[in-house]
């Protein structure tokens, strides 16, 4: 056996308190599994923000519609990577598709993911960009023109009738997409919530809490990307759009906070057998990540900032600053939420008699650096997507010498 792993386990054993079953010392799901619900949450949230425009006709947030879609796509493409890298045998992952166990929540991942990617996001992005792709294919030079032609799946028709069909298709896909986004993240919550062996996870509220925290983090992410990218393009931030997005974020934070309070009060009031060890878990192991980062910095401070913005008529620049700070704090808070669920749930023994410790590695496939790289990767994908499919400008049809519009 690897002597480093042995050394790490001995260190963990020295740091552990109380009694643990001997196989329980090692934390099985590492920081990579923290990333997975965090990333999919961002996808679901960003998509729901985008759907506000098409389904609920919230015109104010229209400037971020395409950006939100591309953000969702970029993060969805990377979301399965941490899962795949975490497997003991990544080369066997295809069995999940070939011989899935219908009673396993995790086996359904492949199908929910494939449905969401193929039937919702890619299809919607394609219809949204089809006209642009056709025009780019005509107006750019080879090889880019060829890339756009392939991306448009060689469609050429941009007559008003065809564009009308696109609009209808987008509406239908978005309507299907909202329950799909709920499914995508609600089911991630179910993966944890359905483990009856673990009282920290086993809760019927888990999918709903996951869902609302996903909406919170996704909207906050699009706000951040919008606030950073707009000045970079030399444009003015549309304050009406920003105010509306932040209002929705505020409402989502309220629902999320209420749900988490409900979960907390419910556990405390029922005071089941596990309550003692869970209290020790929170007080001994999760004070920083749960009380300080998740509740105080990630929830209470942004909430107060939003209340201040709503109550007082603040100047535009100050509002922007507060929104920006709130959105960053919310990201920190939601990441901590994922940490507290995934890592927190493995720090106590199922004998309810002891606590172990998670010693994160710096290097290695499940190390901190890998996790940081996996967090940066979606932004690189997003940059490429934005370059290829600019969300802000649409090409115009240009008349040519022969009089045919291109």
């Amino acid at each position, binding site marked *: 056996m690897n002597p480093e792993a042995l050394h790490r386990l001995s260190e963990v054993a020295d740091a552990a308190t109380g009694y643990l079953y*001997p196989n329980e010392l*090692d934390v099985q799901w590492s920081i990579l599994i923290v990333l997975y619900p965090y990333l999919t949450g961002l996808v679901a949230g960003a998509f729901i923000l985008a759907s506000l425009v098409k389904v609920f006709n919230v015109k104010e947030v229209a400037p971020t519609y395409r950006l939100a879609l591309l953000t969702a796509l970029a993060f969805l493409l990377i979301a399965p990577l941490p899962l795949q890298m975490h497997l*003991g045998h990544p080369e066997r992952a295809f069995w999940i598709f070939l011989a899935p166990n219908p009673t396993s929540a995790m086996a359904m991942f492949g199908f929910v993911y494939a449905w969401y990617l193929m039937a919702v996001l890619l299809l919607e992005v394609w219809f949204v960009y089809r006209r642009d792709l056709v025009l780019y294919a005509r107006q750019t030079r080879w090889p880019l023109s060829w890339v756009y032609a392939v991306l448009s799946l060689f469609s050429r028709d941009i007559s008003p009738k065809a564009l009308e069909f696109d609009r209808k298709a987008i509406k239908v896909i978005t309507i299907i997409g909202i329950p799909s986004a709920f499914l995508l993240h609600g089911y991630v919550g179910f993966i944890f919530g359905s483990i009856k062996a673990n009282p920290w996870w086993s809760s019927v509220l888990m999918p709903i809490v996951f869902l609302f925290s996903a909406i919170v983090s996704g909207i906050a992410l699009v706000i951040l990307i919008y606030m950073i990218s707009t000045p970079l393009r030399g444009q003015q931030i549309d304050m009406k759009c920003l105010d509306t997005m932040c209002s929705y974020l505020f409402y989502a934070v309220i629902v999320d906070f209420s749900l988490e309070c409900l979960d907390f009060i419910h556990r405390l009031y029922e005071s089941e057998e596990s309550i003692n060890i869970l209290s020790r878990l929170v007080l001994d192991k999760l004070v920083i990540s749960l009380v300080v980062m998740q509740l105080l910095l990630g929830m209470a401070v942004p909430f107060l900032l939003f209340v201040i913005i709503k109550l007082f008529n603040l100047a535009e620049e100050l509002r922007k600053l507060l929104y920006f700070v709130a959105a960053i704090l919310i990201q920190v808070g939601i990441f901590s939420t994922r940490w507290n669920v995934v890592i927190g*749930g493995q720090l106590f023994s199922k004998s309810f008699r002891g606590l172990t410790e998670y010693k994160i590695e710096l290097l290695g496939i499940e190390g901190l650096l890998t996790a940081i790289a996996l967090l940066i990767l979606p932004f690189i994908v997003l940059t490429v997507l934005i370059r290829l499919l600019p969300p802000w400008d649409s090409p115009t049809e240009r008349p040519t010498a022969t009089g045919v519009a291109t």
Partner: protein
Amino acid sequence: MNRRGFLHSFWSYLLSFVGARWVMRAERATASVAPEENGKLFGMGIQVDKCIGCGLCMQACKSENDVPAEPFYFRTWVEQYVVKKDGEVAVNSIGTYRIGSPEDVSEKDVLRSYFVPKLCNQCENPPCVQVCPVRATFKTSEGVILVDDTRCIGCRYCIQACPYGARYLHPVKHTADKCTFCYHRTSRGLLPACVEVCPTQARVFGDVHRMASPLNRLKRMSKVHVLKDHLNTEPKVFYTNLDGGVR
């Protein structure tokens, strides 16, 4: 490729995929027919009062089943409970890397002390089988839960789902590993290694269906209890004289 050609190959692929799945399922069904006919259902009885905490069962298990020698991986282990006069309980697993502190308890503070051998409970409703995404972990017709280490992807969902801490990720194979009731022995009529070596016969093994089996004799003579009954996993490891404090 024209449209007709495309559709033709599409349907051929689809049919062969469905066909392959059907054959695989049929193969599995026939594979499980043979043992079902003998109708055995394996279970274990553990007499808490007879265990002296010698740890022979742990050693036998490790050498019989190629369990990693390091003190962090166990298919079976023995817990030592020391109940103090003030009601506090100190617990430890003997022979494992030292966690818990019964040794620190002064003799005059001790109310009573006992050992509890633990292993996979071979549940009738196994949460590990339910959650395995690729059906690498499965229940045999004898009710034994096994892991196919050529199929296991190492996701560790089963380890999370097991309420008894009976599973671990094998550090060399990178697949889930657990007690098999020594399936390679018991399916040939032999006893599991831990039962074979127990000097006090604290562990008994047998067929739950056969009234004359040592297990059923134990169940007739004593009151038995299972671990974490409230989780409805229906364990097939039965304990006699089990203290309420054991989880």
